[in-house]
């Protein structure tokens, strides 16, 4: 089965062998898409907020973990005192029901958790996927068979369910954000491995790689010097789409109460109890939900833009963002016919 995918998938990605000029071309094409530019600005702002979280909360004079029992009305079940959920000069966005923790501080520190977990998990996925994909393509037949089979199995495992289950068996003393990162990273590298293997097989047949081999270069040196540059485009494309997926998974796990746990703030976790409080403190629901929505949409649009910039032909032919599972199949369906016009050229959103 994987053979079919390889044969059909490779032609879509073989146009991109970027060098220094490739990078410049990439920026030019990315800048040409208005939606992607806006998304990039939003993402940059989010990263900035996450990095500057201690600074911002210091400016407000609060921190994300201190309880403020004086700011909540325990007689009414822990509703924040004052209008708009206790928002005001001291607490910019109000306080959390029941605990009185500062919402603004929890929100900006939550950005750290969301982005940190998602980016680190993506890094693990890319590292594992590329290593296994390249090893599979360059290794002996046996190695290839074994690694491809493992990859197929990893892809077959339902991600959310496996992540949920794995979180059950690790002792609670382990730092949760790190744990969530590793769980997501270690489960969802299958598609990257598959893409890398296919691309490496294509590259292996090219002249410059054959020349390197004839010159007596070692496998490692060939992989590093001749293959990695050619792998960059498809891997970056896929990795860009993985980041928002990882953010959603972290939020989902924390929402279910098995991911990042209090007192560490996380957007998903903040939403767990939010539905009970929406009348007394609507921002307790709206802020984390809005933050999640904006972040994931911005990252997805940016990912789409990156894809278009790296491989305009494939992007205009397909322009699907069906996520992890649809990816290979959609590429398989595309059959790699050359130059199919009529799919339109305008930006993604």
């Amino acid at each position: 089965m994987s053979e079919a995918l390889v044969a059909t998938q490779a032609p879509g990605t073989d146009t991109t062998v970027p060098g220094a000029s490739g990078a410049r071309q990439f920026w030019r094409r990315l800048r040409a898409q208005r939606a992607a530019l806006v998304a990039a600005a939003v993402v940059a702002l989010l990263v900035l907020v996450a990095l500057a979280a201690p600074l911002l909360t210091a400016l407000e004079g609060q921190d994300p973990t201190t309880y403020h029992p004086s700011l909540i009305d325990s007689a009414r079940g822990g509703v924040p005192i004052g209008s708009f959920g206790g928002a005001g000069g001291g607490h910019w966005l109000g306080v959390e029901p029941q605990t009185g923790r500062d919402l603004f501080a929890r929100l900006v520190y939550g950005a750290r958790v969301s982005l940190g977990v998602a980016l680190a998990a993506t890094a693990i996925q890319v590292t594992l996927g590329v290593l296994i994909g390249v090893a599979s393509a360059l290794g002996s037949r046996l190695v290839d068979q074994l690694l491809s089979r493992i990859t197929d199995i990893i892809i077959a495992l339902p991600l959310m369910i496996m992540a949920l289950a794995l979180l059950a068996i690790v002792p609670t003393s382990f730092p949760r954000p790190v744990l969530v990162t590793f769980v997501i990273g270690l489960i969802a590298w299958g598609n990257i491995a598959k893409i890398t293997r296919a691309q490496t097989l294509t590259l292996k047949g090219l002249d410059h790689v054959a020349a390197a081999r004839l010159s007596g270069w070692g496998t490692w040196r060939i992989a590093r010097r001749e293959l990695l540059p050619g792998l960059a485009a498809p891997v970056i494309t896929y990795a860009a789409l993985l980041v928002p997926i990882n953010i959603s998974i972290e939020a989902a796990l924390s929402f279910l109460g098995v991911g990042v746990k209090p007192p560490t703030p996380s957007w998903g976790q903040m939403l767990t109890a939010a539905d009970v409080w929406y009348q007394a403190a609507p921002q307790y629901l709206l802020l984390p939900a809005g933050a999640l929505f904006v972040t994931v949409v911005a990252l997805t649009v940016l990912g789409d833009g990156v894809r278009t910039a790296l491989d305009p032909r494939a992007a205009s032919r397909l322009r699907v963002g069906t996520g992890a599972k649809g990816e290979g199949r959609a590429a398989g369906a595309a059959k790699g016919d050359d130059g199919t016009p009529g799919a339109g050229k305008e930006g993604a959103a």
Partner: protein
Amino acid sequence: MSGFGGFVLRRTVGALVTLLAISVIIYVVFYVTPGNVAQISCGPRCSPAQVHQVAQQLHLDDPLYQRYWHFLEGLFAGQDYSTGTSVAHCPAPCLGLSYQSDRQVTDIILTKLPVSLSLVSGAMVIWLVLGVGTGVLSAWRRGRFTERALTAVTLAGTATPVFVIGLVLMIVVCGELRLLPFPQYVKFTDDPEQWAWNLLLPWLSLALIEAAAFARLTRAAMLETLAEDHVRTFRAYGVSERSVVGRHALRGALAPVIALNANNFGGAVGGAVLTETLFGLPGIGQELVHAVKVVDLPVVVGMVLVIGFFVVIANAVADVLYAVADRRVVLA
């Protein structure tokens, strides 16, 4: 069509191998845990002697391969368990006993399954109709405002976490507008009408996210077909645009849509877990989350295996259906 028969056979064998491998991996991962399984199952206040007794009861001192074999035996032949005072029989697909309640995992799954099936099947109808419909519409109105608006909406749809949409729907529809009461699961056999009304919001929440993916795929596949030579020929012969889009291009989208629907099963199950937890539906997902929180390993392992089983079957079916619907696919 010996090539096709061979393809189906290879795919079936592949699925079986995958299933077996998954069962080994899951078993090893969960029972060679850093935590002490006997201690966990006995509870925090157990004395060392009691922990030792539990370990013997669970055969934890046996070598791993023997325990796995025991587990497989239970799956295919059933098993007898001593529950301290009496011996309980656990019939053929035996996934063990819950640490928490001493109930058979198979029983737990069977009582929860109807809820999850109700949720997923209803939502699937909605996401297929809505997703394919939107995709067709935006392929038909390509290049115009409708298409751009739909593309933006579906992009936002694929990106939004399911529990965010669910939360917002629940608060707006049940809390503010009071159009529906907060969902409470009613059995289909008790009252079909109430069953549907109470599931309406969970269905919508799960379906909206999935529909977005289908809309994007349908649109892309249709646009691709529209660019093919035979469609150009149809147009040249004066076939109306509506017929070209509605009949010929849609046919081209059929194969990928079928494949995505079966292939997306794992993702839909993940979404169902969130939906069940959010709306308090007593399905498999909610039970799994609970089992994870109380570290009830047999329940976790059993559910992951059952869900994995469904996903692998769905993937295999997807590949075969894909090959049937689109004979252009390489059967290599």
